[in-house]
């Protein structure tokens, strides 16, 4: 039988095939379908046109209003209302009202919705996040979501496979975020277009599951169809803790075919900053230090997990946010907010002069809760720095890891924690 990668094995299993190969068009059964308050409303509209009386599975559809929620204006409130009413009408169990919600890609792993070997589609490009748990997970549009809600199926073109091997040791203040920014900087925003990105090597095995979620989250920023990590003891422990259950664990075969294999030495990688207006526009933080900032955003589906909050608090503890900087902390879920209270992180942030938001995508996509004016700059732990992404078309976003965003909030310029 053909030697296959983890991604190919999961696709083959869900297409009821023994094996698949790149370029093949297949029809797969899905384990989970996700939508948010921007993408679900058009999906609901399209779903109605199909003319089915029920959804394929009431427990496998997840509707998370996180982008413009708590509703930022009347139109957003109408969109969320549409989701809520759809969920009630069709008995969809997993609709998350504010108070129990979170940023979708932080919430679903945390609540044990995803297990290894699952095939997940979501009407949100960062659905690729769940590859960190050994699932094949990818973003689609609203019509694909509608079709999957009705049929439980989705078509795929089997992607070509890329492998990224990180060896050596991480430098101080280098996070998982830097490995993925570095990767995108090396291969470009279309370097993995239509392809699977498999991350492996000793450095990857040292990363926490949270760190791997950060990396998988940004596979789409290189154009990737999915990002994927092999399940190890850390993943198994994470899946046990969340109650997901281990699922089906696949390994890439030794002779599996890759279109290209990239090998990078981690000790050569410094904290990275992506300059406007593409995530691939990376530079080591040391080369960005004269850049003045007006805002620092710490959180999001990329870096809004408890580990990120702890790191930000470690840097901000006993310090003061620069008087010309607004620092906005965006924890990913209500549980993370609660944990932050228990550990005293909330106090640290507020004493430092930062604001802590309810879980929302908020400013990451220029929605609300921290929009930039003309000419303003934000450093941000989010995932995109396109033109106008956080507000005015003439504002700028610089992407970084958590430590750099926190240190920069203190100094008012792009800084490394070493500069404090």
């Amino acid at each position, binding site marked *: 039988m053909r030697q296959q990668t983890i991604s190919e094995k999961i696709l083959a299993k869900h297409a009821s095939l023994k094996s698949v190969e790149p370029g093949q068009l297949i029809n797969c059964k899905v384990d989970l379908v996700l939508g948010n308050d921007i993408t679900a409303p058009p999906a609901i509209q399209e779903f109605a046109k199909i003319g089915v009386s029920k959804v394929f599975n009431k427990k496998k559809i997840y509707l998370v209003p996180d982008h413009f929620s708590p509703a930022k204006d009347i139109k957003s409130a109408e969109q969320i209302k549409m989701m809520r009413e759809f969920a009630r009408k069709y008995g969809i169990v997993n609709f998350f009202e504010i108070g129990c919600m979170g940023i979708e890609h932080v919430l679903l792993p945390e609540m044990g919705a995803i297990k290894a070997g699952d095939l997940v589609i979501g*009407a949100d*490009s960062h659905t690729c996040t769940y590859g960190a748990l050994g699932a094949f997970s990818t973003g689609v549009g609203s019509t694909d979501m*509608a079709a999957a809600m009705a049929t439980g199926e989705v078509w795929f073109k089997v992607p070509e496979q890329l492998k990224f091997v990180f060896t050596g040791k991480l430098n101080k203040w280098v996070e998982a975020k830097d490995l993925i920014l570095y990767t995108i900087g090396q291969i470009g925003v279309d370097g993995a277009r239509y392809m699977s990105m498999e991350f492996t090597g000793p450095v990857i095995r040292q990363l926490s599951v949270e760190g791997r979620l950060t990396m998988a989250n940004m596979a789409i920023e290189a154009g990737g169809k999915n990002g994927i990590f092999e399940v190890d003891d850390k993943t198994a422990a994470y899946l046990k803790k969340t109650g997901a259950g281990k699922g089906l664990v696949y390994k890439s075969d030794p002779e599996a075919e890759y279109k290209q294999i990239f090998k990078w030495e981690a000790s050569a990688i410094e904290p990275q900053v992506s300059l406007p207006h593409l995530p691939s526009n990376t530079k080591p933080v040391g080369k960005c230090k004269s850049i003045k900032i007006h805002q620092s955003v710490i959180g999001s589906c990329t870096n809004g997990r408890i580990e990120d909050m702890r790191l930000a608090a470690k840097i901000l503890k006993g310090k003061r946010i620069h008087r010309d900087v607004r620092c906005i902390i965006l924890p990913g879920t209500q549980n993370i907010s609660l944990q932050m209270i228990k550990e005293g992180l909330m106090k640290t942030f507020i004493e430092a002069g930062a604001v802590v938001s309810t879980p929302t995508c908020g400013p990451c996509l220029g929605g609300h809760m921290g929009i930039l004016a003309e000419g303003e700059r934000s450093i941000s732990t989010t995932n995109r720095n396109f033109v106008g992404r956080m507000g005015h078309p003439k504002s700028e976003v610089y992407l970084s890891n958590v430590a750099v965003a926190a240190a920069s909030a203190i100094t008012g310029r792009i800084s490394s924690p070493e500069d404090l």
Partner: protein
Amino acid sequence: MKSSGQAWKFGNNIDTDLIIPARYLNSHNPQELAKHAMEDADATWASKVQKGDFIVAGDNFGCGSSREHAPIAIKAAGVSAVIAKSFARIFYRNAINIGLPILESPDAAEAIKEGDEIKVNLVTGEIDNLTSGMSYSAQPFPGFMQQIIDAGGLIEYIKTKKK
């Protein structure tokens, strides 16, 4: 099915935030979205584009977000097809699913200039530049995708399969 109109040129990596900024995503009404199509790439484009015109772009058109509002905005603005060197994966799917014609042709995308008169045969994928007299052919779609296109999008395709 033939369309003709004027070419509007855009560069590489035109992302979905440029095509339709998130500040307008509190609506999914096609006409509302069309008013703001391409706004952050060219603030006045939506008022200049004529029904039947073409977008001609470089590599990785539609990268970024999965928002289907992007192809919807372009289609509702009256664009008859997008010709690009290559398309980002989710945009490609979304365009097929909602019935916005897309044509992958690096040669055409390179050579066509802003304002050129273009004629496209959407069945054969032939692209004629009436201004320069040059002709190009786009990559054909795999059979299964062509069936979705022929049905008028994914929802119609599923409906025909159900029958």
